[in-house]
């Protein structure tokens, strides 16, 4: 049998598993909600999968390292490797995940040149959008689409989930349309993310990855904000796991 390499990305909200063949082609791609027992979820995902070596990334990487005797890599390096497999000329990555966000600048050769990451606060990440969607009674998957229907500019000042929720309540009781409020929230998230990107980005193609890259309104506003097209991988949540799989395959 040919060699197979796996990467597992244990994030705060979801776990992704990707298996590649010797040529780096994706042969398996799986996802599950992390839940409260990440190692049990990981074990279930791995059940029945065959591969020669595995590398773990994401916030649960060290738990996995101990439980499954795997090598590890940070999300930052894994994203750099994974993104380059889709977009070989990318020079910057914006990743907004469930509880953190990061901006990564790449060298021409694809090495991490510089990065920025949010601090302990999950403001402006996937979790923030999730709670705001709930507050406005949207399903998360349609939150972005609804925001795109907005016809009025509203400014949301708070990025803290608790403060933003009370700001949203004030706007609702003020009679504002919920699509407009949704739009205002999206603008606030993008403003923050674009500022983080600008701290590392010195021009060139930008890739947007992580779960929030599925949100069409965020993508649209991001392109508008930085004044150029932004590329999104077909499956933006798999980038970390793919990167880890490719890195372990590079090692061999």
């Amino acid at each position, binding site marked *: 049998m040919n060699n197979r390499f796996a990467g597992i990305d244990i994030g705060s909200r979801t776990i992704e598993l990707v298996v590649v063949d010797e040529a780096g082609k994706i042969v398996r791609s799986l996802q599950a909600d992390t839940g409260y027992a990440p190692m049990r979820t990981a074990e279930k995902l791995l059940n029945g999968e065959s591969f020669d070596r595995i590398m773990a990334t994401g*916030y649960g990487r060290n738990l996995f390292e101990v439980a499954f005797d795997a090598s590890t890599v*940070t*999300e*930052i*390096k894994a994203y750099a490797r994974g993104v380059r497999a889709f977009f070989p000329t990318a020079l910057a990555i914006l990743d907004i995940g469930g509880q953190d966000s990061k901006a990564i600048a790449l060298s021409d050769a694809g090495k991490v040149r*510089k*990065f920025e*990451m*949010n*601090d302990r606060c999950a403001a402006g990440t996937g979790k923030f959008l999730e709670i705001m969607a709930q507050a406005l009674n949207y399903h998360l998957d349609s939150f972005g689409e609804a925001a795109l229907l907005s016809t009025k500019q509203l400014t949301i000042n708070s990025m803290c989930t608790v403060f933003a929720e009370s700001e949203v309540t004030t706007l609702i009781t003020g009679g504002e349309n919920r699509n407009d409020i949704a739009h205002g929230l999206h603008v606030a998230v993008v403003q923050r993310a674009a500022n983080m990107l600008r701290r590392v980005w010195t021009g060139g193609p930008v890739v947007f990855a992580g779960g929030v890259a599925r949100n069409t309104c965020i993508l649209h506003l991001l392109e508008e904000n930085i004044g150029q097209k932004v590329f999104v991988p077909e499956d933006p949540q798999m980038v970390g796991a793919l990167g880890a799989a490719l890195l372990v395959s590079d090692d061999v």
Partner: protein
Amino acid sequence: MFEETYLTRIEERVFKDTILQKETGAKIVGVYCAFTPKELIAAAGAIPVALCSGTSQAIPAAEAHLPRNLCPLIKASYGHALNDTCPYLHMADYLLADATCDGKKKMFELLADLKPLSLLQLPQTAETPESHASWLQELYRIRALLERRTGISITDAGLLAQIRIYNTLRATICEVFALNCGEMPLLYGYEIDHITSMAGFECNLPARIGEMREAIAAVHQRSKDTLFQKKMQHRPRILLTGCPSTNKKVLKLIEENGGVIVAMENCGGLKTAGFGVDETGDPMESLAKRYLDTACACMSPNPRRIDILKKLINEYRVDGVIELTWEGCHTYNIEAFTIERAISEQFARPYLHITTDYSQNDTGQLKTRIEAFLELLA
């Protein structure tokens, strides 16, 4: 080799020496920042001691009086005073505090209710003759104040003797750091931290210097230790800069995740130990010059800090620079922008800026950031 127990032994020795000296009537003077010339205190027969400010336990108490978004170092200092949980502050007869940043000097106003405190009025620049003149006047005022408090008059000869001892101490600390200049670093940052620590009261400095020299001699053996070298050789060499690393969580994370802190540009480290007092001129003028030149971010402008960084990056063959700033420390947090530009553009080294406090709740995120930075250097 130089674990917590190493330091505890020295702390016990220092404590005994202090009790002996205190019994002969010596006063204990608590100090805060790096602008206070300890030579003056020692020349008045008193014992200088730096006060506790590195742990989070006392912070909740401090937040009853101080704003929550103030830097943890200031909150911790004040909290220890409120709770009476710092043995050094407890034993201090009075405090000599330098008016550095806004947070410190306003906190000192509150602290003065708990302990007799005198403030050193610090100019905000070292760049003008006027600021030097006023600082020299201020040191004369402090000299007279110390003489009144201790009943001992400070002579120029006595002051010069203390300048010499402190110069030897600073030079010895530099020698400890210099063990990391070669191709193979011989010390971890946490070890440097323990070996060069003042271990509390600054009394019997010759003994403390002797202990540092013993450590230096022992560390030299490592250059023949292949096991040690094997562990050390692939570690990226980090220069730590920024706020005083009073709390050790970031220092620990850097070394636990595969780096080695070869040098530290911060207070107590090479920012302060790297510079001696001129022993040939008028001792008061020499003291004033040396101390006003401290490259703290509370000074504006602060060009010396870049000069020091440049020198250390070359001397210690630094792979990457990590700047640690405490949340709420406006001066260092703003200056970080200038430092980052100098490090990446002038000195072409990767730079990571970490802003945090003393709590443990961001350890996961910090670990990822530090690990990713070390990956980038590998």
